[in-house]
């Protein structure tokens, strides 16, 4: 079996070419997933690039992205496959005059032609290289998770009327979760696990520089530092990477070159959504921090 990537560094480099800034852990796990033929389960706070990682890997490896967006109530007929029974009914009606046996009809209507392929099956049957993204898997009921297991461990789908369909190629699979509930042990066992946290200050600065074309080094640095400081506070919701990017873009639009207290307090609502969080952060930045913070020893 041929592998997609030769080295971890290659993964990181290629991701950077499509504007995704990965650290060692991220690049390493993508590399491993390809080598071991295992899915990656990515968990972490909102807006840390979980979904984007799958998209970027697809882009950089010239693979087709197949996405299954999960939601409460997602079932087999939307995730795996469904028989097109309208078409089946039509077929039965048109044939009912002839002297065709029921077995023949049955064989016919349970064939490929009448099968509606959904994302999981589509990924299994693909002839070309695909990346399968199962987004926000924590939204489906725990019972529905079972649907995924066969696909994720054996890369096959069993359809009672057709038998077992095996993958022609091993797709690279990403599952994302916002951790609103504990996923089943069975699912976790089958996956490599990546906790995608907020990036380090240095990496976030790189992300800003890549994603906000007109920004200069100095402002990007300031943006990343301020966001890091805000994240060190105990808040209801910390700013996500996408909010950092939005903030930086806004600063550029406003023609700002230097963030001071006034700019920060006028634009902080892009980073923080709760009133109480905003108040807390502004209070922190106005007071002399030496009095607020006694350094831990």
């Amino acid at each position, binding site marked *: 079996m041929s592998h997609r990537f030769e080295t*971890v560094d290659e993964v990181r480099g290629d991701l950077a070419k499509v504007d995704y800034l990965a650290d*060692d*852990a991220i690049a*390493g*796990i993508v*590399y*491993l997933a390809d*080598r*071991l033929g*295992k899915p990656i*389960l990515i*968990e*972490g706070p909102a807006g840390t690039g979980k979904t984007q990682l799958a998209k970027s890997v697809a882009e950089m490896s010239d693979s087709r992205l197949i996405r299954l967006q999960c939601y*409460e109530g997602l079932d087999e007929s939307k995730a795996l496959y469904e028989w097109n029974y309208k078409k089946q009914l039509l077929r039965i009606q048109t044939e009912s005059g002839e002297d065709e046996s029921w077995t023949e009809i049955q064989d016919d209507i349970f064939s490929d032609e009448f099968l509606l392929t959904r994302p999981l099956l589509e990924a299994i049957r693909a002839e070309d290289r695909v990346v399968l993204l199962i987004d926000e898997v924590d939204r489906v*009921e725990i019972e529905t998770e079972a649907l995924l297991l066969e696909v994720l461990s054996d890369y096959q789908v069993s359809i009672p009327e057709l038998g077992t369909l095996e993958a022609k190629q091993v797709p690279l699979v990403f599952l994302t979760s916002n*951790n*609103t*509930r*504990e996923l089943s*042990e069975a699912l*976790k*066992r089958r*996956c*490599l*696990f*990546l*906790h995608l946290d907020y990036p380090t*200050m240095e990496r976030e600065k790189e992300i800003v520089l890549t994603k906000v074309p007109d920004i200069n080094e100095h402002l990007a640095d*300031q943006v990343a*530092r*301020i966001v*890091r*400081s805000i994240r*060190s506070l*105990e808040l*209801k919701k910390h700013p996500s990477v996408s909010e950092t990017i939005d903030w930086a873009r806004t600063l550029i639009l406003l023609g700002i070159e230097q*963030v*001071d*207290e006034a700019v*920060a307090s006028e634009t902080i609502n892009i980073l923080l959504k*709760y*009133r*109480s*969080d905003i108040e*807390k952060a502004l209070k*922190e*930045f*106005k*007071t*002399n*921090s*030496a009095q607020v*913070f006694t*350094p831990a*020893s």
Partner: protein
Amino acid sequence: MRDGVIDDLETEKAAVAEASPIFELLNGFVTELRNAGLPVSLSENLDAIEAVRHIPLEDRSAFKAALAATLVKNHTHWRSFETLFEVFFSLRGAEYALDGDSDDPFGDLDPDDQDGPPGAEGQGQGGGGGDGLTPEELAEMLFQAMKNNDQALQRALARQAVKRYAGMEPGRPVGGTYYLYRTLRNLDLDAMLERLMQEAQEDAGGLTPLEERLERDEYETRMDGLRKEIEAEIRRRLVADRGAEAMAKTLRKPLPEDVDFMHASREEMTNLRRAIYPLTRKLAVRLARKRRHGRKGPLDFRNTVRHSLSYGGVPAEPKFKYPRPSKPEIMVIADISGSVAAFARFTLHLVYAISGQFSKVRAFVFIDGLDEVTSYFDGVEDIAEAVHRVNTEADVVWVDGHSDYGHAFEVFWENYGNEINSKTTVLILGDARNNYHASQAWILKEIEHRARKLFWLNPEPKAYWDTGDSIIGEYGSHCDGVFEVRNLRQLERFVDNLV
């Protein structure tokens, strides 16, 4: 059949282990992870073995990432994993080519350091460039390394500092924290931070509060890095002295969800507070789902017929009426004195975080006097803030500030007793240590009569109940349930069942 598979896997594992000492080491590591409470399955163990085959062993961080990806499937277990990883793979440098310290300007631990006493103060001889420095020179070098963010030099100096200041002697039965404390006391990082800030001020010709804050955060990040280096060095030396298995055992720490409310250290408290947000979010989602899916009611005839139209009149999809069970009203009565305060805080926080599940939540806190604090939570976004106010502002001291459950219950009964009805669930939080005051247990009996349910949550281990001045047995006999709730895991379970 099952056994057969496992046998095969075990044989394979054994075969792999034979092939290379690194795999043997890996098996020991996995055993320790399990001892620490991480649920590593056999298949995950095999995945780890397979994974490291694809990783150049000299790349320590890739090696660590490969193990983490295959063995740790819950982020709250990360710290335990990291500590154990350090213990198991920090010393095996040369042998397994895992030690990524070639950038160390002072060289690695001296070979003679490893068998002999790891350099007590003043003893280190010929261990490379760092030994000749005076303490002042060392401090100055460290200052410069911090200021310029020279991480290689920081690492080297961290080692040197441990060697000089920790006073480590082989076989001494003290834990790493003791050595850490001694080393840090000598380095006086607080003073260094102030000096760094001062120089930053001078270099910039004055800093605005915002700039100052950003500078400080930057230096504190560097300090944290240095502290980690020092801890790592201490651990390395301890492992050299005692062996990995023994060290792993002394380092075994409870997972956040298992940390005892009553005996949490400051760091554990911080971790607990961090854990509570995702937990309440998870709980809220789960409970909301439960309400929606919970019970199937009787057939909803009209709805079924309406839907049947799309099936040509065949009632193919029966629809049910979802009963809307009336939401209970909750009254929480919490002892917030000394040792049980943390427990009360977490429970109040959790209850308010899911207050949408109840028609009404009222909170009362007491020590020997009792005060209603419901209004503290009215319309606030930040529950933690409200909980904090409860602890600092509520009027709960009557005589001497020692818990008096009996008197608190009396006050409660007199003022609020008639507001309890058959929809009210009453939760009492506390250790029932009544300082030998009158119990007034009859009040609980009255409450139990009036309320829908009366539960007691006790943060003490069951083994201590009814010892000394604890009268949980007497109070409990009037309750619908008494639960031991010592940690987040137990608290989550209780709240889950409550709704």
